[in-house]
């Protein structure tokens, strides 16, 4: 739990304050110095329009990480509600809810996201919509499973017998039981959202230029692969680092929970 917390705080700081650390305006054009190699002025070099790559990467955190954060939280909310409805609503609600989940799961995530984002028209909102709509199912499955097991536990029966209000039972009995497993799923969802946002950006369906999103930076850099290969290395490296860090802390959290149980 602690490693995830530290990581979440670090990413939050990066999202909020990353832009403030940028040495240059991420959109300031500097054509004479286009495609320049790393130097003391431009630590990671400049892109095809002479914009500072480091500044664009730092500003990009707001898009790539920030949007992924929003997407993963929306998925969490939708999935948890769906899962708890399935767990609590009786046999028919459960069956219907799980078939709806199966149906959404049947579409490969990225294919569905590309189609949705592409048809809604490229842009931030359609990106959030597309990735949330394709990312909630794992939360639903886990929330349902945990919900079903919590439902029959002694303390929940006792709380119902005592006549505790439903919100109180949800807050004090369900939430602590759901939190660890949902956090593990959330780390996975966060990592996948980062990959999804950059993939859509790379395909041109995501965040639109001139906003500095990592995937679309990669798309820009691709054209200059022969002359300036470094330009293509940086955004990818940042994506891999973030995803790897999230995945590893998610693994650590899962192992810690497994040891607890």
């Amino acid at each position: 739990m602690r490693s995830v917390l530290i990581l979440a705080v670090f990413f939050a700081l990066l999202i909020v304050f990353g832009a403030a650390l940028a040495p240059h305006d991420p959109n300031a054009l500097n054509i004479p110095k286009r495609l320049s190699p790393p130097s003391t002025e431009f630590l990671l070099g400049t892109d095809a329009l002479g914009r500072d790559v480091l500044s664009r990467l730092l500003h990009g955190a707001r898009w790539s990480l920030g949007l992924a954060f929003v997407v993963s939280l929306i998925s969490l909310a939708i999935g948890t509600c769906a899962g708890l409805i399935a767990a609590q609503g009786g046999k028919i609600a459960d069956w219907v809810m799980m078939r709806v989940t199966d149906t959404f799961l049947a579409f490969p995530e990225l294919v569905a996201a590309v189609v949705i984002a592409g048809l809604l028209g490229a842009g931030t909102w359609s990106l959030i919509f597309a990735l949330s709509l394709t990312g909630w199912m794992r939360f639903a499955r886990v929330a349902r499973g945990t919900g079903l097991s919590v439902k029959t536990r002694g303390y929940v029966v006792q709380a119902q017998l005592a006549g505790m209000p439903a919100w109180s039972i949800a807050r004090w009995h369900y939430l602590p039981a759901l939190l660890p497993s949902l956090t593990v799923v959330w780390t996975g969802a966060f990592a996948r959202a980062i990959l999804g946002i950059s993939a859509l950006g790379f395909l041109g369906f995501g965040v639109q230029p001139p906003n500095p999103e990592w995937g679309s930076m990669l798309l820009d850099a691709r054209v200059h692969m022969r002359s300036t290969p470094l330009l293509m290395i940086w955004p990818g490296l940042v994506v891999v680092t973030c995803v790897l860090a999230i995945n590893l802390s998610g693994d650590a959290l899962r192992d810690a929970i497994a040891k607890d149980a």
Partner: protein
Amino acid sequence: MLTVDTIAVKRGSKLALQNIAFTLAAGKTLAVVGESGAGKSTLIAAILGFLKPIQGQIAWSGQPVRSCRPALVMQEPRAAFNPVLPLRRSVLEPVVAAGQSVPEARIKRLCDGLEIKEEILERRPNEVSIGQAQRVGILRALIAAPPLVLFDEPLSALDAVTQKHTARLIRDLQAEEGFAALIVTHDLGYAVAHSDEIAVLRAGQIEEISTPQQFVTAPKAGYCQALRDAAIALGGLEAAA
């Protein structure tokens, strides 16, 4: 008074209980005995309204049982408490739900009667012994002074010494509080020693309802007699016989 009027209860597609009928008056204790799978837990679930009977009625003085705020003491003492909260929070749930103020004096008196220190209520379930947890479970059951308390194998998780002790505490508290007690158990010795009436449950039906005296001296021929003889052979009925 608890009235169970010829109910039948289904579990899944199977008939788990049928033709169950008895009454239980305030201050009295009914022990329901039977082997595992006889339908004891189903009976408790039905009385508490977690399962709806497909036939017959269950009522507390003409009202639905849940309206009298009955309490339940569970078989697994620790599982009855939320593992992440201090015991006190769980104990106070019946009081909080009823919108009453915290009865400090009553908690103290019940703790004395149950021979537990009030401080252990600040601990979490895995920080107390099983025996302590079970007594805290009884405390929670009694805190809002319910007229009806159900005990689901209340002693089976405890060791022999603690069992005897806890059984006596329940008996003493009942004398003091005057609640009606329904005790589900497979322990015949306990049923004989601490109840006013014994109902023998077998395969979802009641074989016989009798006083402990009758049960020991002149059980109905067949299953009940075999049950008594087995218990005597195992030394479980020495005290009563």
